[in-house]
Structure formats: structure tokens, C-alpha cells
């Protein structure tokens, strides 16, 4: 029942974001023809015919129903620049972005969990200090800056990793590190604070008085309870990371859907912008659905209450 309910509400939200994406770009001033032809050269008839061809001369409800109709059937339209189908373009470049997002998530979760747990256990010690520093810097540094610093250090000075491109595993290290540090910052702070909350709970005292070893108390009971908010956060972070690739793929000159949307925005290629945003929203909703479903594995209370 819980699962069915969650899937249904996810579908509703996806439908809503479909409408929202259309609305944002429809209500905004200007239409795509503004950038496609120069009014000083083209005649009024040429402009009118192009508008007709693109369907932008139609009233709102006709444009809207046509758009919904196409999107539902998986037709995201085609690029205004080179008529390439938007969905093909997205699917072609998505694997590179997915690889980057996955690698960044791995960096975030590893650094975040390890530092977060150790800092809570050794509260106010040197590890805690380092963890708090990582947390604070992670959430405060702009990625386009930390990425550039990594390029200067590891590409230009040391020559360990290439500064740009998307071929081979070496090109993914610096971008994944850049994006991963942000996520690590959020996760360290979250895990540390929820571990500290749990450590103060009375049931920890009960566990110790039962004679459980400190290791079992911390890793089996405290960590498991502290993981619940962390998992929620990881779900949200994956969406943010997917979006963060817009900046990262530009900094490291990588191929990917982030780069596509950046370029499309510059060129006012609206179908591509719409397509990428909607695609990202769908993935974001799916990831969060998975996260919600995974609660029932981590936390039995969720299973029972639903």
C-alpha cells in the first residue's frame, strides 16, 4: 500500500513538473524565432512562416496540448539549431553525466559517512575538527572555483590528471572530486549531527548497561539510526549533483547533458532546455522514490506504520 501510494504521488509530481517546465518557458518574454532570424534581413512573411512551422503562433491551449501530447509519447521535439531530436541528444550524452554523477556520489558518500561517523565518536578531537572543516568548506566553495583549483594543482602543476575531456577514467577523477566534496560536506554535517543526537539518547545507555561492546553500540545501533536522515539527504543530493554537472561539465569541458543545457540556454534553443530539465526532474523523482522505498528496509517503523 505504501509503495503504491508513493508511486502514484511520484507520477503526479512528474506530470506537474511537465506543466511547470512548459509554463516557465511559455510565460517568459520572446519566442524562439527572435534568435533564429534577423528581422532586418528577413521579410515579415518569412518570419510568419517560420512561426507557423514551429507552432509558436498558436494560442496557449493548442501549444500546450500539443506539447503534452508529444512529451507523453516520448517525443521531446527537436533542436532549433540543427533539428536533431532532443531525446536522442539527451540519451546520447546522458551516460557521461550519469558516470560523473555516480562517481561524485561515491566520493560524497565515502568521505561523508566515514568522516561523519568518526567525528561524532571522537567528538571535539582532531578528526572532529577536520570533519567540521571539510563540512564547512564543502558547502561553502563554489564548484567552478574548487574545480579550477584542482586543475591548477593536479593538471597544470603536477600533471597527474588531464584538465579536460571525457575519454578514459583519468578524466573523471577531478570532476568527481570537485562535485563529490560538496556532497561530502552536506553528508558529514548531517551524519555527525544525527549521530550526536542518537548518542545522547537513553537507549544507548541501556545498550551499554546490557554489556554490549562500545563498537557494537556505535556501529550496530547508533550508526543504523543515524543513517535514516543521511539516506534522505543522499537522495536529494543526487538530484543536485545531476544539476551541478552544468557547471562541472563546463569547467572541465566534458560532454554530458549539463553541457547541452548550458549551450542550449546560450543559443535560446528552448526544446532542448525543456527536454533536459524535464528529463532531470524525472530522474530526480525516481531517485527519491527509490530512497523512500529503501526506508522500509533500513527502518522497520516505516514499514509498519504504512
Amino acid at each position: 500500500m505504501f509503495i503504491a501510494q508513493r508511486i502514484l504521488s511520484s507520477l503526479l509530481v512528474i506530470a506537474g513538473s511537465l506543466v511547470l517546465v512548459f509554463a516557465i518557458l511559455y510565460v517568459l518574454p520572446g519566442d524562439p524565432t527572435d534568435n533564429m532570424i534577423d528581422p532586418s534581413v528577413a521579410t515579415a512573411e518569412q518570419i510568419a512562416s517560420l512561426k507557423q512551422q514551429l507552432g509558436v503562433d498558436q494560442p496557449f491551449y493548442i501549444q500546450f496540448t500539443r506539447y503534452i501530447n508529444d512529451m507523453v509519447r516520448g517525443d521531446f521535439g527537436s533542436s532549433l539549431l540543427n533539428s536533431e531530436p532532443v531525446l536522442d541528444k539527451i540519451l546520447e550524452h546522458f551516460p557521461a553525466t550519469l558516470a560523473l554523477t555516480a562517481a561524485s556520489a561515491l566520493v560524497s558518500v565515502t568521505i561523508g559517512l566515514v568522516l561523519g561517523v568518526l567525528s561524532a565518536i571522537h567528538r571535539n578531537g582532531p578528526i572532529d575538527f577536520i570533519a567540521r572543516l571539510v563540512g564547512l568548506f564543502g558547502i561553502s566553495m563554489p564548484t567552478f572555483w574548487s574545480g579550477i583549483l584542482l586543475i591548477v594543482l593536479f593538471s597544470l602543476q603536477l600533471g597527474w590528471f588531464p584538465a579536460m575531456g571525457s575519454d578514459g577514467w583519468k578524466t573523471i577523477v577531478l570532476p568527481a572530486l570537485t562535485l563529490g566534496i560538496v556532497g561530502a560536506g552536506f553528508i558529514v554535517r548531517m551524519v555527525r549531527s544525527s549521530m550526536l543526537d542518537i548518542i545522547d539518547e537513553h537507549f544507548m545507555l541501556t545498550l551499554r548497561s546490557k554489556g554490549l561492546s562500545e563498537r557494537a553500540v556505535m556501529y550496530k545501533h547508533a550508526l543504523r539510526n543515524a543513517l535514516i536522515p543521511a539516506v534522505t539527504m543522499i537522495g536529494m543530493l543526487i538530484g543536485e549533483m545531476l544539476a551541478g554537472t552544468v557547471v562541472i561539465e563546463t569547467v572541465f569541458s566534458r560532454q554530458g547533458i549539463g553541457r547541452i543545457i548550458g549551450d542550449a540556454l546560450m543559443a535560446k534553443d528552448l526544446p532542448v532546455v525543456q527536454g533536459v530539465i524535464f528529463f532531470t526532474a524525472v530522474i530526480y523523482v525516481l531517485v527519491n522514490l527509490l530512497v523512500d522505498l529503501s526506508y522500509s528496509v533500513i527502518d522497520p517503523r516505516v514499514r509498519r506504520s504504512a
Partner: protein
Amino acid sequence: MREAATASTIRYKRSGRRFAAIRFKQVTANNLFLLAAAVIILFIAACAVVPSFIAPYSPTEMLTDSIMQPPSAAHPFGTDYFGRDIFSVVVYGSRDSLFIGFASVLVGGLAGGAIGALSGYAGGWIDAVLMRFNDILMTIPGILLALAIAGALGKSLFNIVLAVAVASIPGYARIMRSQIMSIKGRTFILASQAAGASPLHIFWKHVLPNSLSPLLVMATIGIGTSILTGSGLSFLGLGVLKEVPDWGTLLSQGRGYLTVAWWICTFPGLAITMFVLSVNMIGDRLRDQLDPKKSAR
């Protein structure tokens, strides 16, 4: 009353002298960091308000005899391709960067706070509609939403503020709604209702004042987030092209000279990081103050 408090403090100190000493050291170290954060924020704010008192050069002055100079005593942040003193450009650039940060928090916080307050206080179908809308807005990650809005509206400072503000609305709305709902259920509200106060009176006099703190804390941290998003938009080329670039634009311009002049990119980014870091530290402390359980950490 006062004497009793002093007596209990002394007793506390005696019984746990060692504990108190550690705590004291901890607290002072934390306060030193907080003080540093406050000084950084004040200094950068001063840069934005009176840049001409702080910057040694004009941000548009091209020193033709010192082009692409690395950091030195004369030019602490070095000079760029035009021979501009980077330190002076960063000082003047703080104005637009900070404006984006503060203005978008003001707009987004007010709009999000109003939506959340209405949703939480009214309840029923209003709440259902507003929160579904909020859920939908949340499915599009902040930077993408801001990027789409700013990209479609065109390059202007106001449009960046608007884009960053809209992207931040869902977060504010959610926190305001949950706070209003928890206050609404408290006994003193029931007492006020029993005394015959109108719903509007109860909202303005009792619910709203008691619900503002979490929103204010979130807005503090939001200043940092907004500056990050705003400078990200500038970096991607959606910023305003002016004689004096904001930090994101300056950094983006410096990228082309990365192999020969690392300092052009490094210092504007450092300015962003130091400001956001300081704001986050103050925000963390404010949040801990609200949560007595955490204040001892």
C-alpha cells in the same frame, strides 16, 4: 534571585572544574572562529558600501606597465590581462555579488515565507494545493530552475535575483509551513481562541512572531547559497556584462588565462568562499541557539 544563580554557578564550577575548563577552552575557540567570520562579513560588506576607501586603484584603471603581474606587495591579488589591479576589481565586484545574495534572499524568503504561512495556517485545500505546487517546484534542482529562468529572461542583475529567488522559494515555504503548524496546535493559541480573538489577530500577534526564527536562520544560510547560485549563473555567462564584473563573471573571464595567470581566477573565488563560509558559520551558530540540545556542541 541573582544571588541564587551565582551560588549555583559556583557549585557547578567546583563539582566539575575540569569539565568546565575544557568547555571554556572549546567555547573560546569557537567564539574566535565566529569573531573571525563576523570580521570577514563586515569587511566585505564595507567593500560593497564604500569600495573607494578600500581599493587602492580604480577597478577600470588599466596599468599598462604592469600587465599579468603575479601577486606582490603593490598588487596583493596580482593584475590581469588589461593591467587591472585584481584586488581593486574584487573589492568593487563585491557590490553586485552581495546584492544578488541579499536581494534574492529577501524576495525568496518573503515569497516562500508567505506561501508557507498561508499554507500552514489555512490548512485544508489551500494547503493541499500550495504544497503540491511546492513539491513540483522542488523536483527541479535549484540551479537548473534558476538557469532556465535567467536564461529565458535575459541578462540583467534583476533577472538573476528573480531566478535565484524563485529557486529558493520551496525551501522557505516548507520550513515556514511546518513551524506555523506546530505553533498553531499549542495551548496558548487555544487559550486565545477561547478568549474570542479573531483568527487574523491570533495569526499576527501570536502565531507569526513565534514562527519566524527558523525562517530567519534559514535566510541567513540562504545568503550563502544565493551567492553561490548567483555567481554560478554569472560564471556560466548569464551574468551582466559591465565595466566592473561581479565575482562570478571575473572568475569566468580569468579562466582563459589559467595556464599563465592562476591568480585571476583564484582570488575572486576565494572572496566568494570566505564570505559564504563566514555566513554559514554564523548561520550554524544561530541554528544551534534555537536548539538547546545542540547548543553545547
